[in-house]
């Protein structure tokens, strides 16, 4: 067995162990990869009822403007992200990316406007670097604080709204990407209607001292089961959502990564605040002229899963390399293999057949529209 004694723990570790979780190292944390039900059942339960995820390893960061004016924090942050932060209304959240000078992606994150400050959620593996990046870029105008005293959980699936409503908080008025404060079991939490599964659901930031208690009470609801990292990955893959480090990274631009939708008009060419973020020249250039490759959905035609790292060829002999799989596995809801990856822009049309190299064979894979499973966000 791998020695995991050096790893950090989330406030919910004891709860995971009591539920029979199998713990693995992930981004420096000891995290539950699955519970006794297993990945398949956990995945399907999330799509059919409600799944509860511990995502406390992720970084929760507050950006508070020294002037007291939220516009100042928004404009400061816009120097690091190609996203319209100024136009983000109070109580709203938006997906964003940190870019580097080459137009690559340093991390992806969520930004919420909480009235007098911005609330950011960043990836666990990047959170220390992100924090430094934010301090360096924003410390003139903002106070940047990493919250060390809060857990983060996600409740995802068609029963999530009803479960929260039955237990404590009427969240039915919230729309996708709304953020609000609400009391769960007399604990003030920050709730956003968002997630990483393609399902309607909520992400809930809880003070550490109350995290296990609130989580345990949610798990007592018959519709709620704990879900590990294994199903988290298959759920997000079916939903067509990127995993930072696999599907997007410092070598991929937002245009190549097919996440142009994350860049609002205000930051594009001709917009009110065009450019002004790291890598703007390259990224806006690709907006105008296109890139040479693009992230696409990939649907293997047989039953064999095609995993991240597999090379993609135009032919069945492995002669003409046209791309690479970045994430792939089995989609329990699709009931078949699903993948995504990068292909040359000559091969991005839906239905184009490419061939994935798997154990010395070249398996046919169709370029397919993402997501594989219809998203059920409450817009």
């Amino acid at each position, binding site marked *: 067995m791998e020695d995991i004694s050096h790893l950090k723990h989330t406030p919910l570790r004891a709860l995971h162990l009591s539920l029979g979780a199998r713990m693995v190292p992930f981004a420096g944390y000891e995290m539950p*990869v699955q519970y006794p039900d297993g*990945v398949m059942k956990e*995945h399907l339960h999330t799509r059919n009822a409600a799944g509860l995820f511990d995502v406390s390893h992720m970084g929760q960061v507050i950006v508070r403007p020294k002037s007291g004016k939220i516009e100042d924090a928004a404009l400061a942050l816009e120097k690091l992200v190609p996203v319209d932060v100024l136009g983000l209304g109070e109580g709203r959240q938006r997906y964003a990316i940190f870019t580097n000078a080459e137009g690559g992606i340093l991390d992806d994150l969520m930004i919420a406007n909480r009235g007098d400050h911005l609330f950011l959620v960043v990836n666990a593996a990047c959170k220390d670097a992100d924090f430094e990046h934010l301090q360096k870029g924003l410390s003139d105008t903002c106070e940047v604080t990493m919250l060390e005293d809060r857990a983060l959980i996600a409740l995802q699936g068609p029963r999530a709204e009803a479960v929260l409503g039955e237990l404590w908080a009427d969240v039915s008025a919230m729309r996708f990407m709304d953020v609000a404060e609400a009391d769960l079991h007399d604990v003030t939490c920050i709730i956003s209607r968002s997630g990483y599964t393609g399902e309607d659901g909520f992400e809930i930031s809880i003070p550490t001292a109350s995290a296990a208690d609130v989580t345990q009470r949610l798990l007592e609801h018959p519709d709620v089961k704990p879900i590990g990292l*294994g*199903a988290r990955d298959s759920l997000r893959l079916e939903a067509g959502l990127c995993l930072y480090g696999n599907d997007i990274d410092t070598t991929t631009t937002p245009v190549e990564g097919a996440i142009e939708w994350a860049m609002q008009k205000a930051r594009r060419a001709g917009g009110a605040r065009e450019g002004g973020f790291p890598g703007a020249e390259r990224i806006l250039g690709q907006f105008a002229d296109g890139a040479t490759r693009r992230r696409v959905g990939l649907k293997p035609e047989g039953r064999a899963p095609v*995993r991240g790292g597999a090379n993609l060829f135009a032919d069945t002999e492995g002669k003409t390399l046209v791309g690479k799989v970045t994430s792939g*596995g*089995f989609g329990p809801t699709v009931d078949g293999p699903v993948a995504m990856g990068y292909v040359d822009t000559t091969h991005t049309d839906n239905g184009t057949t490419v061939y994935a190299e798997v154990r010395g064979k070249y398996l046919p894979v169709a370029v397919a529209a993402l997501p594989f499973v219809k998203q059920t966000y409450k817009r």
Partner: protein
Amino acid sequence: MLKFTDEHEWLKVEAGVATVGITEHAAGQLGDLVFVELPETGSTFAKGDTAATVESVKAASDVYCPLDGEIVEVNQAIVDDPSLVNSDPQGAAWFFKLKLADPNAADALLDEAAYKELVA
């Protein structure tokens, strides 16, 4: 004669032919299987060669050939329904039958008590 390897395969040897599968312990560790690839009948393998592949939702894993030999039969049932490996790994979900190059080679493998100690 029932034997085991430290790579978590079981072998039932009858008249120089070993029926080979993966152990209950291995099936439990792998989780829900969604894909199985078996060798071709007539192919030969040395001990330790990758003879089959199993895939769960999360990952692919190799199944090694436990001894030198020739594949004389494979179990199409687990290709058609990989979940059989999870429900009956040491029974209906055998992988392949291996004609042993040396019929006595299995003697040196683990017996059931030794294997149980290994995974305890």
